[in-house]
C-alpha cells in the first residue's frame, strides 16, 4: 500500500552527533575492505543458493549493514563478547569466522559450526567471542548484558557488545535491561543497526519516538547517533564506548543509521518500498563509501581489484566446500539436548 519515503538520507539525519572520528591507515582500511567485500560476496552467494531452493527457513542477509560489523570488529578484541540478531552473518564473518563453516551451516551440513542444527539465524563461535545470534527479537540483548555482568564479577577486562534492530526497542525486556545496565554501570555497548524497517513495516509507522537514540536518555545512558555506514565513524565510536566501559563508566548506546539493500529475508518481494528508495541509498552504502575513500587516499583500483579477485576465489571455494559437505548423520538429531 503506501510506500514510505525516508525523510532523510543518512548524512543529513545525523542530528546531535558528538562522536570521535578517526583516519585509519590505508593498510588497515584495506583489511577492512577485504573483510567487507567477503561479507558482501558471502551474502550474495547465499541469496543465490536460497533462490535455487538449497536453503530453507528464514535467511536474513546484511547487505548494506556491513559497516557496523566491520567497524565494531576492528574496535574490539576477540575476547570481547558479541551477541546479535538473526541478521548476523556479517558480525560473525567480520570477527573472522571461516566462510566455509558459515555457508555449510546455513545449508544444514555436518561441517557447519553447529553441525547444521542452528542454521542462518543462530551463528555462534565462542572462540571468536561470538556468543550467539538469536531468532527472537531482543533476546540477545540481556544475554550480552549478562556477559558484561560476568566480566565484572570475574574481574576480567572484557566488554560486551550487542547488536539489535530498530524494531527491537519496542520489546519490554530491552528497557528492563537498559535500566539494570546503567544502574550497575556494566561494560556493555548497545548497538542499534537502524535500517528504518522492521520487516515490512517502516519504523515510523509504529514508533512514538522518532530518534531511537533518545530512548535510553531517560535512563541516564550516554547515547549517540552515528553514520553506521562509515567504518571509521563506527570504529571510533565503538572504541570510545569500549574505553568508557573498561574504565567503569558504564554502557553506551549507539544508533548506527544504515539501510538494508537486500530484502528482509530471502524471498522477500519488497512490495513495501520503491526501487528509487533503494537506488538513492546505494550512494551511502558502506562498501561504496569505503571504496571511494580508499581511492581518494591514493589506493589504486588495481589493488582493490586484486583483493576482490582473492575474495571471489575464497568465497567460491567456500560455497563449493559447503555444497560438497555431507549431511549430518541422522543420529545427530538426538545429541546436544543435555550436556553430559
Amino acid at each position, binding site marked *: 500500500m503506501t510506500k514510505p519515503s525516508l525523510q532523510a538520507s543518512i548524512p543529513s539525519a545525523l542530528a546531535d552527533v558528538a562522536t570521535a572520528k578517526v583516519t585509519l591507515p590505508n593498510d588497515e582500511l584495506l583489511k577492512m575492505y577485504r573483510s567487507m567485500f567477503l561479507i558482501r560476496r558471502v551474502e550474495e552467494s547465499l541469496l543465490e543458493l536460497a533462490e535455487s531452493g538449497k536453503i530453507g527457513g528464514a535467511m536474513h542477509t546484511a547487505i548494506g549493514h556491513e559497516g557496523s560489523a566491520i567497524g565494531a570488529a576492528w574496535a574490539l578484541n576477540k575476547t570481547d563478547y558479541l551477541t546479535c540478531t538473526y541478521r548476523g552473518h556479517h558480525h560473525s564473518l567480520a570477527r573472522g569466522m571461516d566462510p566455509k563453516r558459515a555457508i555449510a551451516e546455513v545449508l544444514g551440513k555436518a561441517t557447519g559450526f553447529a553441525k547444521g*542444527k*542452528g*542454521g542462518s539465524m543462530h551463528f555462534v563461535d565462542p572462540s571468536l567471542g561470538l556468543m550467539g545470534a538469536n531468532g527472537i527479537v531482543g533476546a540477545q540483548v540481556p544475554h550480552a548484558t549478562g556477559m558484561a555482568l560476568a566480566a565484572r564479577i570475574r574481574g576480567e577486562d572484557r566488554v560486551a557488545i550487542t547488536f539489535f534492530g530498530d524494531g527491537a526497542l519496542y520489546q519490554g525486556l530491552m528497557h528492563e535491561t537498559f535500566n539494570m545496565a546503567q544502574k550497575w554501570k556494566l561494560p556493555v555497548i548497545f548497538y542499534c543497526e537502524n535500517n528504518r524497517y*522492521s520487516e515490512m513495516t517502516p519504523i515510523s509507522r509504529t514508533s512514538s519516538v522518532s530518534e531511537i537514540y533518545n530512548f535510553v536518555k531517560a535512563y541516564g545512558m550516554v547515547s549517540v547517533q552515528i553514520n553506521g555506514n562509515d567504518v571509521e565513524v563506527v570504529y571510533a565510536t565503538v572504541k570510545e564506548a569500549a574505553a568508557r566501559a573498561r574504565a567503569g563508566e558504564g554502557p553506551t548506546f549507539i544508533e548506527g543509521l544504515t539501510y538494508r539493500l537486500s530484502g528482509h529475508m530471502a524471498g522477500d518481494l519488497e512490495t513495501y518500498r520503491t526501487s528509487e528508495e533503494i537506488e538513492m541509498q546505494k550512494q551511502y552504502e558502506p562498501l561504496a563509501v569505503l571504496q571511494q575513500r580508499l581511492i581518494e587516499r591514493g589506493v589504486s583500483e588495481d589493488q582493490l581489484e586484486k583483493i576482490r579477485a582473492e575474495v571471489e576465489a575464497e568465497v567460491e571455494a567456500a560455497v563449493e566446500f559447503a555444497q560438497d559437505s555431507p549431511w549430518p548423520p*541422522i543420529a545427530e538429531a538426538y545429541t546436544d539436548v543435555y550436556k553430559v
Partner: protein
Amino acid sequence: MRKTTYIQAINEAMRDEMRRDERVFLMGEDIGHYGGLFRVTRNLMEEFGEKRVIDTPISEQGFIGMATGAAMVGLRPIIELMYMDFFLVAADQIFNQAAKMYYMTGGVVNVPLVLRGQHGGGKRYGSQHSQSVESTFAQFPGIKVVTPATPYDAKGLLVAAIRDDNPVLFLEHKMLYFTRGDVPDADVDYVVPIGKADIKREGTDLTLATFSYTLLQALEAAEELKAEYGFDIEVVDLRSITPLDMETVLASVAKTGRLLAVHESQSNCGIGAEIVARIYEEAPYLLKAPARRLGMAPVSIPVSKVLEEEILPWKKNIKAAVLEMLR
C-alpha cells in the same frame, strides 16, 4: 461449494466476522499495510481501516495484554502472531492473565480473544520458529485450543472462535497454508463447533487420532498402509484439543480396538499422552493392544533438512508406528 486455500478460508472468516460484528478488530505485526507476512490478513486494512486493523510494533507482551484489556470490556480482538513460537514472549499475559481471568473473577469478567498464527516444522526454520504449542496450551484451563486441518474446518472453526466468549488459541500449521479444499460459498454463514472431532477416513483396524498438518500426513499414511499391507486405518480429526472430543475417539476405538494418537508437539507430556491415559481410565476394555502416542522427539527442531525429517512425526514415522502396532 467452491475450492479455496487454507489462507483464504481464514481471511474470509475474519472478514465476514468483522462485517457482521463491529466489536471484532485485529492486531499484529505487518498485518495491516503489508497484509501479513503470510498474506493471511490481506485486504482487511483496505476494507476496515487502520482503526480495526492495527499494525503493532514488536511488542507481543504489550499488545496481547492490550487485547486482553480490550476484550475484558467487551471487544473481540483477534491477534496474529507472526510465528506461534513468539507466544512465549507474552506468556504471562496469555496464561496468567487472559486464560485465568474468568475463573479468578468468579465469572464476572471474561476475555473473548482469539490468538492465531502459524506454527510447525517442515520448512527448515529451526528451533525458535517451528514449534507446535498445542500441548503447552492444553495445560492451561480457561483457554480453548483449536487446530483445523482443512480450509472448511479452518473457516468454520475461526468463526466459532471469534464468536466464543473465551480466549481461543487458533493454530495454523505453516504446511497447510497453500492446501486447497471445499468451502461453502462466500454468502453461507456456517460454524464448525469447537470441541467436536470428525472422522476423516473410516477403517476397522486401528484408530489414528490426530489433527492439523499431521492429519494430512496420517491420511497419506493410511492410503499407503492400505495399498501396501491391506490395513484399514480409521483417521479421527480431533480439530480441537481443548475441549477434547474423547467420545468420538472412544466410539472409534470401540470399532477398531487400537489407538495411536499423533501430533507435532512433544511426545513427552503431550496431548497424545493425555489421550492414551484417558483411554486407560475410561475404557481400557476396548483395547486389543496397548494404545500409543507419537509426537515430536524430545529435541529442539534442527535446521538441517535430514535431521528435521528424522524427528517430525510425519508419514514415515506414522507408518512405522502403525506397523509396529499391527504386526
